[in-house]
């Protein structure tokens, strides 16, 4: 088991390195001179060159990547300029490991930016996750048990409709009508627990979490239903039935348990992805999370922030994959790690 874990983690790290190289190549090899966006409009050729040097964009992308990698491991100084260290040391920003870069546009280290925005995205992810898992599994199992009935058709139909409307459309409906025009809820604004207590945190989260959960719930209802139905047809369920076990035991102990295993693991992956920010939901509700940060960063060509976010999110997903595989082995005795 331990050997397996070590091997997976090692493979994960390799994957992350490859992925960060690909990301750097994608962003820094583009023929667009990024510095002209940062330099602004009244920017002469000389100023542009100065900016590029200050941003490190005049370096080869391999060097830029290795500087980045070094920053992750041991930290970095921005700008790393020995001359400036003599004349104006106070203008050099120290970015401690794990350093994901420094954003000129935002005047802060990417690590700090993420520290500010992560709690927002995480809150949203948790709230949506609880809602969609509860709703998805409940309705999915219900539909499976009542297969072919009016209830089943209703649940499946509704989930299909929920799936069909784009998230931003649903979000706008809730925001503009429920919150603003009808005034049924407060205007959603993110409030941290420290500021507004659990109550304030929850009330700020309600509408965005519902928006985000609807899409996932629709998918999870359909998925749960089909896994449950499938597991009823499995041999061991038939065996259990043949042995004369009560239907209730068969349903809950055998069929459901088997069906829910893949769902739980998959939910883990979805949750990991969501921790990196729900870009659309955060945009609709003006939620200052990592998704919103990504939108801001891409709109002003803030490459360090974008790259930092992309790599961090990839790390989340790679980690989640490992955890989920391990979890799968624990839940499902048929899986052997080796």
């Amino acid at each position, binding site marked *: 088991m331990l050997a397996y874990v070590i091997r997976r983690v090692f493979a994960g790290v390799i994957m992350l390195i490859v992925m960060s190289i690909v990301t750097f190549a994608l962003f820094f090899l583009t023929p*667009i*001179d990024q510095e*002209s*966006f*940062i*330099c*602004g*409009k*009244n*920017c*002469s*050729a*000389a*100023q542009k060159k*100065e*900016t590029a*040097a*200050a941003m490190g964009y005049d370096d080869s992308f391999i060097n830029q990547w290795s500087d980045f990698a070094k920053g992750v491991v041991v930290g970095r100084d921005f700008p790393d300029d020995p*001359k*400036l260290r003599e*004349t*104006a040391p*106070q*203008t050099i*920003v120290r970015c401690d490991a794990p350093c994901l870069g420094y954003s*000129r*546009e*935002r*005047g*802060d280290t990417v690590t700090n930016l993420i520290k*500010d925005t992560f709690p927002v995205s995480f809150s949203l992810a948790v709230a949506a996750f609880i809602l969609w898992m509860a709703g998805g599994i409940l309705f999915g199992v219900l539909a499976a048990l009542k297969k072919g009935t009016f209830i089943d058709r209703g649940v499946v139909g509704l989930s299909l409709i929920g799936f069909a409307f784009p998230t931003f459309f649903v979000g706008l409906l809730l*925001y*503009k009508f429920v919150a*603003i*025009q009808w*005034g049924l809820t*407060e*205007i959603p604004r*993110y409030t941290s627990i420290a500021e507004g207590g659990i109550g304030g945190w929850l009330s700020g989260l309600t509408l965005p979490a519902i928006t985000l959960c609807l899409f996932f719930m629709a998918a999870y209802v359909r998925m749960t239903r089909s896994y449950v139905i499938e597991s009823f047809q499995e041999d061991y369920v038939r065996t259990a039935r043949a042995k004369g076990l009560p239907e209730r035991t068969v349903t809950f102990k055998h069929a459901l348990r088997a069906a829910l295993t893949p769902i739980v693991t998959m939910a883990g992956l979805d949750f990991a992805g969501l921790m990196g920010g729900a870009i659309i939901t955060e945009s609709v509700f*003006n939620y*200052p999370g990592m998704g*919103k*940060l990504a939108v*801001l960063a891409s*709109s*002003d*060509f803030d490459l360090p922030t974008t790259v930092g976010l992309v790599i961090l999110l990839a790390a989340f997903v790679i980690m989640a994959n490992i955890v989920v595989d391990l979890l799968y082995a624990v839940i499902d005795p048929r899986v052997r790690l080796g």
Partner: protein
Amino acid sequence: MAFTKKPLAALAATALAATLAACGGGSGDDDNGGGSSSGKAEKGGDAIFFVGPRTVEHWDPQRMYIGRDLNNSGRLFYRSLVALPASNDPVEGTTPVPDLATDTGTTEDAGKTWSFTVRDDVKWEDGQPITCEDFKYGASRNFATDVIIGGPANYLFTYLDIPTGDDDLPAYKGPYSKKGQELYDQAVTCEGQTITYRFKKAWPDFPLSIAQLRYLDPYRADLDKGDANNFEIISNGPYKLDGDWKEGTGGKFVRNENWDESTDPIRKAFPDTWDFREGDTDEAIYEQLLADSGDAQYAVTERRLPPALFSRKDEAGDRYTQVESPYVDYVLPNFNSPVFKDANCREALKLATDRAGWIKAGGGDNYFKATDSVINPSVPGYEPNPAFADIPAAGDPDGAAAALEKCSAPKPVKIKFTYSGGTPTSDNQASALKAAWDKAGFETELDPLEDTYYAVIQKPDADFDVTWGGWGADWASAGTVIPPLFDSRINITPDSNGNDYGNYKGGPEVNQLIDDAYAEPDLDAAADKWAAVDAKLGEDIAYIPLEITIFNFVHGGKVTGYANNVSVNGYADLAVLGVEK
């Protein structure tokens, strides 16, 4: 060189804005001429400013260049040598008064040297006195072009008496590298509390530029962290930042105990706190303001009422205000394009341009006013441009079709219109122009660009035929309009056209006219000379004017002393605004 980024997102700073509809109570309070509504402001309460989707890019005074941020910071937490009083009078509101200085500046050589004396009873938020050295240091930061990016430093580069180096930039490289420090120390000097600026050439309206921009604000050398201070606010005004500024969210301002009301004739500082909120869409902001519910009752904004919600303005009653803005929008034929290097083709485009359709698509007469010059009527030097004054607002399709016959380009004349798109309004307005041009015989391809707009059109070899531009003067002088936009000598280099997107080259005649206007020390005579340059630009069809933006605002019901003052470009003047408790 203020510019507008999108047709409905004008930035920048400039002078006059006439109040069209001073709704409601009007001038109950002393000198707030117009645009004011509701009761008299009193101390106390918590006010909100909706910043909207366009977040603040810099709070560093030397890096700010957006009208909204220049205004708000100047009213709440940044002071400079001189400032504009809170007034809507076209003269009073655009005449600098002493702020941190004891006078409005003295010059003994018609503007080549300017001196100011700093008050000795003013303090920073940490209680330190504000010194002449702070001003000198602040100005020096403009020269650190690798760190202090985005501000209007170019004015200092043009005027301040510092030699130019091999790279066409000043030989002084700012306080961080200290390269060429001795050059700067000669150009800007402190004697006691008196600061003196020495220029290469006369700069008669220098104090106005200090009042309108923030690039000469004082700065604390001991607290300067360069780029990392982008969102740090070292206040010397009535409010200071409580905690951090968070981009995308905003920040909260509380009273600065080290600001002494008796030293400040301009800022009334009524509310106890100011909450700046970023990121909401215009629709979300205005749905709340129109409903006047919850927090929005205490709020003002610089966002404009979206045209989609205009029909609901009556719900707001006297909370709705309308002001003419200092911005002008125009289109530019590209002089490098095979079509529009021919004057006949430009003539056809000019006559075919349907300003009325453009205006209607952008919201109609309540949102824009057709205009006939790139110089805003509020700026001295404006005169109806004879080249455009007589064309009907909807254009002259027949005249255009006739002119197009003479155009040398192969028929049908295919043109590409590259514009700053991405908002429903800009896309629709472009479609309206296309419809009219096509009617006259052009075949127009629309090419909307968003974030990459300037990167594309600033390339001299770009393949567009027509593009869009918007501009507001940095201060009340046509010298901050025509040269930045049309002087090829300062704009066009092999790899950029600066702000001369149309690649217009006036040649010796126009260059001479510009130099003459610049050299004229009498501001009234200079205005006439600028008008003459504008007439020549019209003759060459260097641009085709479209309209002047009109601002439509709604503010919250518990806001008091609301005024859209000319001193803050027609935006809400936060210096005199209060809220009910």
